[in-house]
């Protein structure tokens, strides 16, 4: 037996992958299959799942109910998608200049500048959102600072009503995921050969043209990786919207969470969760195919 393992590399490979596959089957494949099965079920009056085969949950999510057209859930799906798109775009616009700045800094200073980007990530995810509550609430840091400035300049000041609101959710999302965009963009910018800029200059490209035709295309892998790292968690979160949005901003994540824990309707929650997964996979596949960078993603 031992001798057989020693000589058979295929067997060795299988034995090495086996524990990981066992964990993945038990905690990913079976759970997802169960979620799909549950999503075709119904619930009884006590909130227990009755396993049948009905597409009712999916129809309801897409707006077709027994009482006619109701786009409540469809709007939630679209709102989540729209918020994820907005967050990703803003994060790219904020991350790119900083990543570019770091990449063009003297080599000795780069590590320190990158380190500074990472420090905020080490507070806890939930704590970072709480910090924004402190800043954005009506008597919070932002309003008192703006009020003080207005007082100095002798201009009237109307406190901003930002918390809770959809804008607060957007700010919170941007804050949470900004570092995840800065790092990959920096990595791809840093790899660009300086000689390419010289070549562009020799060919009489101006600064703007060089940036647009050389820098941006070469940093695409970083943008794509950063987008995946931002878009997927944003579209599935319920914590940021829960805390910064109050009851106003309901996203798919909130919907799924409430169906499981408050409304006690697991089949409906499971259907919402599967739709969320499908949206994410469609996005990831389309996006990576479009930019042809599947291996870059796989490498993180």
């Amino acid at each position, binding site marked *: 037996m031992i001798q057989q393992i*020693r000589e058979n590399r295929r*067997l*060795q*490979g*299988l034995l*090495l992958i086996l524990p*990981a*596959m066992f*964990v*993945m089957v*038990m*905690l*990913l*494949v*079976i*759970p*997802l299959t*169960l*979620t799909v099965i*549950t999503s075709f079920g119904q619930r009884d009056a006590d909130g227990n799942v009755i396993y049948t085969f009905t597409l009712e949950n999916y129809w309801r999510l897409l707006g077709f109910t027994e009482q006619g057209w109701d786009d409540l859930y469809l709007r939630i799906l679209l709102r989540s998608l729209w918020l994820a798109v907005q967050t990703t775009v803003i994060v790219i616009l904020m991350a790119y*200049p900083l990543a*570019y*700045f770091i990449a*063009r*800094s*003297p080599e000795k200073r780069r590590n320190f500048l990158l380190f*500074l*980007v990472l*420090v*905020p990530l*080490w*507070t*806890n995810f*939930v*704590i970072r959102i*709480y*910090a924004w*509550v402190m800043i954005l*609430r009506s008597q919070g840091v932002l309003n008192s600072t703006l009020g003080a400035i207005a007082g100095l300049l002798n201009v009237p000041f109307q406190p901003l009503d930002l918390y809770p609101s959809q804008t607060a959710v957007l700010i919170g999302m941007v*804050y949470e995921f*900004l570092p995840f965009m800065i790092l990959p963009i920096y990595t791809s910018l840093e790899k*660009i050969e300086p000689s390419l800029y010289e070549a562009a200059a020799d060919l009489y490209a101006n600064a703007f043209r060089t940036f647009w035709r050389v820098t941006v295309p070469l940093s695409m892998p970083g943008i794509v990786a950063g987008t995946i790292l931002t878009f*997927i*968690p944003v579209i*599935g*979160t*319920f*914590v940021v919207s829960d805390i910064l949005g109050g009851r106003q901003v309901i996203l798919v*994540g909130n919907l*799924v*969470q409430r169906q499981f824990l408050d409304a006690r309707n697991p089949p409906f929650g*499971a259907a919402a*969760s599967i739709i*969320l*997964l499908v949206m*994410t996979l469609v996005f*990831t596949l389309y996006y990576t195919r479009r930019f042809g960078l599947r291996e870059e993603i*796989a*490498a*993180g």
Partner: protein
Amino acid sequence: MSAKKQSPWLALISILVYFFLYAPIIVLIIFSFNASRTNVVFEGVVNQGPCGPFYWYCELFRNRSVMDATRNTLIIAFTSTVVSTIIGTMAALALQRYDFFGKKVSETTLYFPIVTPEIVMGIGILVFFSAVFGWINTALALAPSQRLTMGLGTVIVSHIAFSIPFVTLVVRARLHGFDDRLEEAAMDLGADEFTTFRKITLPLIAPGVLAGAMLAFTLSLDDFIITFFTTGPGATTLPIYVYGLLRRIVTPELNALSTIWVFVVLIVVAISQWFQRRE
């Protein structure tokens, strides 16, 4: 990219982005010294009891729930890091250096959690465990006190599951360009597989394994969503505890907790950097 003269506009934008990144952290730290219990407006520096300005820090250490949550968080993070690092490293070795039946499928399965929203995985695991536990509890007709419930065990197992892909990813990156001849040379010189692994393979991939373990540890410490769906009585972690607080009254204790958190992590990172430098 080479260092060049930077445009002042770019520098200004960068400073603003850094300000955006740091403003919340600074606010958190300042408000941990707040005299106001409700912590909405800064009403001056607290000076109460023997701890003076560090009043909220002392309160924190007297708070049993915080201490329990800290203990749970560390138990979960350590256990899941050790297990997922071992399993993830094995998988990385298999995928990078061996050919076997079902390699492509294994690879896809292993990377699937990375592109799956956490909530989907969390819900799946919740559905799975409640089905299995429900079935076992009924089949064995267990008394209420003996029934299987969600708790530390389910959280640890879930953290192991979502960390493995990240460990594998990091270790694989390190295995890229690994020279197989080094191992062959060791074997030619009479070393057995175990010795070769211990003396040649492990030292070479150690930095990757360490980086993978660090990532697994950070992911576990920071995780909220999957823990939220897989936790149970007696298994409250710090993020779950903080989330619970946010829905009630938040005193500056929470700010004290955040401040300590940042400084502890800073120290840990500084130490690990120092070790890397020494290498």
